[in-house]
């Protein structure tokens, strides 16, 4: 029930956004994430964006995992 999926914002009108989810177009409310901009990915839960996906943090996570793996290899 706490499912939320990443969706890309393609257009915004007021507090409503049009989003793309792997080629499927839906609309979502931005009342919980008014900072979201066109081009952002948001986590969408029951018709509401609950969080804006932070691309820098996503890259940082990948870097951390790769670092973990590199450390292991060095052992």
């Amino acid at each position: 029930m706490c499912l939320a999926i990443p969706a890309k914002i393609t257009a915004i009108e007021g507090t409503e956004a049009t989003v793309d989810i792997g080629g499927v177009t839906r609309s979502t409310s931005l009342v919980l994430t008014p900072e979201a901009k066109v081009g952002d990915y948001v986590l969408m839960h029951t018709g509401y964006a609950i969080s804006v996906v932070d691309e820098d943090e996503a890259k940082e996570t990948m870097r951390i995992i790769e670092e973990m793996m590199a450390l292991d290899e060095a052992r």
Partner: protein
Amino acid sequence: MRFIDEYRDSELARGLVEHIHRRSKRSLRLMEFCGGHTVTIFRYGLRQLLPPTLQMLSGPGCPVCVTANADLDKIIALARTPGVILATFGDLLKVPGSTSSLQQARAEGGDVRIVYSTLDALLLARENPDRAVVFAGIGFETTAPTVAASVLQAKKEGIDNYKVISVHKTTPPVLRALVGSGEVRVDGLICPGHVSAIIGSRPYAFLPREYGIGCAVAGFEPVDILQAVAMLVDQLEAGEPRVDIAYRRGVRPEGNTIALGMIEEVFAPGPADWRGIGVIPDSGLRLRDERFDAERAFAIEPGPTREPAGCICGDILRAVKTPLDCRLFRRVCTPEYPVGPCMVSSEGTCATYYHYGQDGPEAEEPCGQPARGAADE
């Protein structure tokens, strides 16, 4: 798809699994709170990839499952009340209450509508001004702000026929109740990703501080969960339990402050009744404005509650038993004919065991490689 495929990558998964195998020395019991995490763990066969030092437990993080029969009965009684349109998410439809379900109430003439969002419930209220539209508010902090937003919108537009029956529950109090009871030993906790998108990671700080339990907030792809397990092993092997976030693309330490503000504006904390656990103070959300509170708008008398005979869902939610301990599992109780809510909900522990098998033999392959392959050295 972006922000999905990367986290199913088998190379990353393999690297994390190897890391976990190298680092894990002590025997540890890790619990995934969230039913959604249980599904990912079983679907991708992650349990079999982990070293025998790590024991995984499934927690109570399934909102439908933890809803007590007394509350289900109230919702079902509302659906049978003349003049009411009962709006609900689909996963509640088949859940058996004491003597009936919403599905049964609908078959017998109750006006039950499945909605995808509270926005749809509001729309129903606008379109049916002479009826009361009651939204069945079940869910954790992920869902609560969407219900709060709908109430605020109804207030703004003066939609007085929109009501909510709030059975919402909050997660930090139940975690405290679970670990505080001492009934199950938990060394590390995989914290719910989308609850944490709203509340942040700070509300878990009491777990390492007071109980020495390590925490890692995780997303729902296999790499997210493996990263959380790796973080927990690193913390606990170093003897430094803390709260880490393995889902930094979606979760900030402070959470979503706007959503939290809306919850605070619309709801006040109150006691909530958890299946298998009992009443926990301040773990529920009561509507502050009585105009929108279905419980105050209607005198609901659902009659005495009854628990399904033989169902051990409550014990499973406390992680003291697993579905394999239930005599009805698979034989009598199936997703088609569920006896208890843990089999109805798609993220209920019994349904997950049913679909993926306890050892996950039918597990999906993480991205083109056999599930077991990633563990091979």
